[in-house]
């Protein structure tokens, strides 16, 4: 047991702080966009509270604006978010919590960003830590959407623009330390980056699918290569 459950909430908040910063400009813009689409403040905040998924919320707004049928909007949202299935499947073994209810509640807070922070943590994830990371991210998302609706995205232009890099910088900051330690990680990241660039660049598939397919392909190929290498070593011995 590394940490007491109650003692890990605060370190979780700290680990999630980068996400909170990164969500701020995106949620702010979402709030503004939602206003121009014609949603009320309550609907805007409710969407962030209930859906809590950046890409799908943006997409939802444009589909609502286009008068798309509710069924199609919901179906499209499902397709965009299906990659979370892969993420929580990957987290499953790391989450230290016997209660299915608590696991389910914790799952609500899993996004690309919280997943990345949690998955890069060494060892198991105590649920207190998990809730710390997801809570600060969620709070930032919901509150910033409301602020964006009320006051608009009125940051100075140069700051607004430069803050859009925040989440990518965070992903890089999470990936590089592991990359320095292992060639396998380098292969995994480089392969999926290459697949994703090809698939989206040539319009082979939409981004939601492309991320899933690229990730699975890369994870599968590297695992095959490793299994093959291991077998060969066993034979040579």
């Amino acid at each position: 047991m590394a940490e007491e459950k109650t003692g890990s909430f605060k370190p979780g908040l700290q680990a999630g702080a980068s996400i909170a910063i990164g969500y701020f400009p995106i949620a702010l813009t979402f709030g503004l966009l939602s206003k121009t689409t014609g949603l009320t403040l309550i609907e805007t905040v409710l969407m962030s509270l209930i859906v809590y998924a950046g890409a799908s919320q943006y997409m939802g707004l444009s589909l609502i604006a286009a008068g798309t049928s509710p069924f199609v909007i919901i179906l499209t949202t499902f397709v965009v978010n299906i990659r979370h299935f892969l993420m929580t499947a990957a987290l499953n073994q790391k989450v230290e919590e016997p209660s299915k209810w608590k696991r389910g509640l914790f799952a609500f807070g899993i996004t690309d960003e919280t997943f990345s922070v949690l998955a890069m943590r060494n060892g198991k994830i105590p649920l207190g830590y998990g809730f710390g990371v997801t809570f600060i991210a969620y709070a930032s998302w919901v509150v910033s959407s409301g602020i964006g609706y009320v006051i608009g995205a009125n940051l100075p232009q140069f700051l607004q623009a430069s803050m859009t890099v925040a989440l990518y910088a965070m992903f890089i900051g999470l990936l590089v330390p592991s990359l320095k330690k292992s060639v396998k990680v380098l292969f995994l990241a480089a392969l999926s980056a290459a697949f994703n660039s090809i698939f989206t660049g040539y319009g082979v598939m939409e981004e939601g699918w492309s991320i899933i397919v690229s990730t699975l392909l890369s994870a599968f190929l590297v695992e095959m290569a490793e299994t093959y290498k291991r077998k060969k070593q066993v034979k040579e011995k």
Partner: protein
Amino acid sequence: MNTILLVIIGMGIVTFLPRMLPLVLLQNKTLPPFLEGILKNVPYAILGALIFPKVFLIQKDPLFGVIGAGTAILLAFIGANVIIVVLGAIAVLSFYSFLF
């Protein structure tokens, strides 16, 4: 009930289900080692796909993403904490977009 509210609730449900099901259903299940290996690879692979190529497309000026990603890689490589990487990249890009 109003349609937008209906849409929001529907979107919420289809977003929550893929998040929740693996954590609840796969609990205490042992998967075949090969599949387990693939899942262990997922975090690193997904980070690659989340960063590229989109980091180059965040602003119309492609240099913007290059400078941002470059700063982040450099800071992370010398061992800076994630939050420093994030703030550093924002700072350098603020300076860049303030100038040009």
